[in-house]
């Protein structure tokens, strides 16, 4: 039989569980008690009501649209369910964007401008993770291309920076590489002018901060197999703008 001291000690442990200070083993033990013992479950629920109001202090941040796209495909939801659009900050208020643009990424700025002028102007222009960017670097450390992705309009603009020369009968091809996944072809890109790539929903769903963009050298017109056949000459991580 539990003594009052045991009761107090258990209750403190439930409070520690809700606060989040227990290690993995101690958490697992509390979770088993919640599952097996209604009294434990009620005590934990009471602490949640006590402490969870603290979470009101945390500013809400709208997730990128592709998170919903990933959920929708992962759960097999009907594709006609409209994408929910949480409120977003305005583009011009985005400090990270300006910081990013301020670090000498002039080619990226060019890519953003190309995109802003080449798409029908949405009102208001918004950002957050609606735009993503990647600096695609070659093995010598020099940026070959920069890519700016406009999630809302499902397109990417790839602007050549200083791509290394390749043989005339070959084409650079762009790939999206999801973490732990196979490269997805995004098509042949130009070495002398910006290329606009339209993104399909399955490609959009894989545009995450953990994915990579890569460029391989392929026969003219692109890989005949749907997977890279030539050497990868440049790659870069994707990040939110």
């Amino acid at each position, binding site marked *: 039989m539990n003594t009052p001291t045991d009761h107090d000690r258990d209750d403190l442990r439930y409070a520690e569980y809700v*606060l989040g200070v227990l290690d993995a083993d101690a958490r697992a033990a509390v979770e088993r008690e919640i599952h097996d013992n209604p009294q434990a479950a009620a005590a934990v629920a009471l602490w949640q009501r006590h*402490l*969870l109001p603290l979470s009101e202090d945390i500013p809400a941040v709208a997730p990128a649209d592709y998170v919903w796209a990933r959920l929708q495909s992962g*759960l097999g*939801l009907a594709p006609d369910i409209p994408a929910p659009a949480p409120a977003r900050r305005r583009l011009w208020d985005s400090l990270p964007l300006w910081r990013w643009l301020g670090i000498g990424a002039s080619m990226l700025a060019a890519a953003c401008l190309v995109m802003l002028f080449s798409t029908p102007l949405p009102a208001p222009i918004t950002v957050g993770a609606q735009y993503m960017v990647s600096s695609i670097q070659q093995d010598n450390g020099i940026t070959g291309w920069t890519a700016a992705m406009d999630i809302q309009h499902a397109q990417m603009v790839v602007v050549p920076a200083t791509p290394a020369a390749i043989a005339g009968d070959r084409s650079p091809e762009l790939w999206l590489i999801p973490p732990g996944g196979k490269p997805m072809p995004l098509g042949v890109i130009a070495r002398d002018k910006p290329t606009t790539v339209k993104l399909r929903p399955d490609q959009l769903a894989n545009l995450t*901060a953990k994915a990579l963009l890569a460029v391989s050298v392929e026969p003219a017109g692109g890989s005949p197999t749907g997977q890279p056949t030539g050497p990868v000459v440049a790659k870069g991580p994707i990040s939110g703008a």
Partner: protein
Amino acid sequence: MSSSPAEREELSRILVAAGHGDQRAFAELYRRTSSRLFGVCLRMLRDRGEAEDTLQEIYTTVWRRAGSFDPARASAITWLVTLGRNKAIDRLRQHREAPLPDPAIALDLVDEQPSPATDAELSQERQRLERCLDALEPQHKAAVRAAFFSGATYNELAAHCSVPLATMKSWIRRSLIRLRTCLES
């Protein structure tokens, strides 16, 4: 939590509908609550990619387990934030075998001024909790806040504050006991 009773009831209905497999209700639930939960994930995980993966995991679980939500026992937002924090803490525990230097925890500890919103915008529960937190010693209050927002273990918190583990445990345990007395009075 800072919403009106009518909004709470509506959110509760949406969550129950999602629990019955209503996809539109699920999309509406995501629209209303994902920013709140993503903020929580970002704050704890401090990495956008990790936070996105965790958010996806959270809503996958919501879709599968919303049927177990009981409106008589908790508000929808409490149920969701609890689920979200648990997923984020599980992920922290998987990745952090050893305490990492984390300046943000130290920041939480000195960042005494919480309220992002004026009192009027905070729920009654939040205001009440603040009054009880204010009755603690400032250092203890800061430790409780840092623990809640970071999801760090006792060991990690002690390391970041450069205090012995026993000291950190005693600060937080005494605070929790005093908070319970204050909140249940």
